[in-house]
């Protein structure tokens, strides 16, 4: 009698374990496509250029003169720093703008299509003087970047 009970419990435990595994698999399967399509939170939480590239599934970033970053040498107001990112490379998938010393490095990610030029301008917030990066991720996963130092003058009295 005892023996049968033992066996019964074992099977039940086994069953529970299997359901847990299946549930886990389903969750992963449900999550993955979402991550690929929607807002890439991991990339926006990353602290460095290398981590951002990794979060986006891109290759290790290489410095290149084909990518251009534009911005002021000295920004008087860190709340509004105009930056431009552009590239002459072909087959660009994403253009990224990063500020290295911000709490999260990634500022903006542009998904480039054939109908727009890989050339964007926007304004960013900078907490302190820092290197800023323009990054081009190509369709083949190769990643190129250009960087520039922007000094932020606190107090807004000019440099």
């Amino acid at each position: 009698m005892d023996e049968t009970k033992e066996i019964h419990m074992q099977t039940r435990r086994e069953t529970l374990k299997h359901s847990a595994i299946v549930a886990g698999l389903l969750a992963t399967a449900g999550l993955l496509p979402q991550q690929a399509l929607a807002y890439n939170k991991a990339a926006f939480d990353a602290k460095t250029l290398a981590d951002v590239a990794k979060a986006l599934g891109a290759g290790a970033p290489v410095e290149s003169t084909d990518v251009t970053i534009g911005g002021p040498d000295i920004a008087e107001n860190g709340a509004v720093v105009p930056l431009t990112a552009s590239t002459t490379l072909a087959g660009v998938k994403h253009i990224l703008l990063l500020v290295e010393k911000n709490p999260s490095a990634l500022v903006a990610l542009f998904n480039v299509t054939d109908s727009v030029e890989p050339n964007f301008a926007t304004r960013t917030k900078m907490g302190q003087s820092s290197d800023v990066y323009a990054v081009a991720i190509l369709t083949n996963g190769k990643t190129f970047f250009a960087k520039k130092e922007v000094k932020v003058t606190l107090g807004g009295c000019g440099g």
Partner: protein
Amino acid sequence: MADPMRIRAQAAGDKATVRVLMSHEMESGQRKDASGKLVPAWHIMEVSASHNGKVVLTADWGPAVSKNPFLQFVVKGAKAGDKISINWKDNKGDSRTDEATVT
């Protein structure tokens, strides 16, 4: 509903330069209010641009884009009279779409 965007699209040759000024607080989530509590992040997450109804650009933004964001991009093959429409969504689920004509 947020205030309307200001969109200007100017054709030059076989392409058009689009400049957009959106109206949004873009709270970074780093700032503290008077009582010392962290102000939660409130920023535009997704931006998409369409040229005559076809999506030509999508972008994901973090909280580090400035308040009342400015965006400039160049649409290939756009000519005077074409429609450019811009849509944004923020992390509170608010969204707005505005349209402009290329001049």
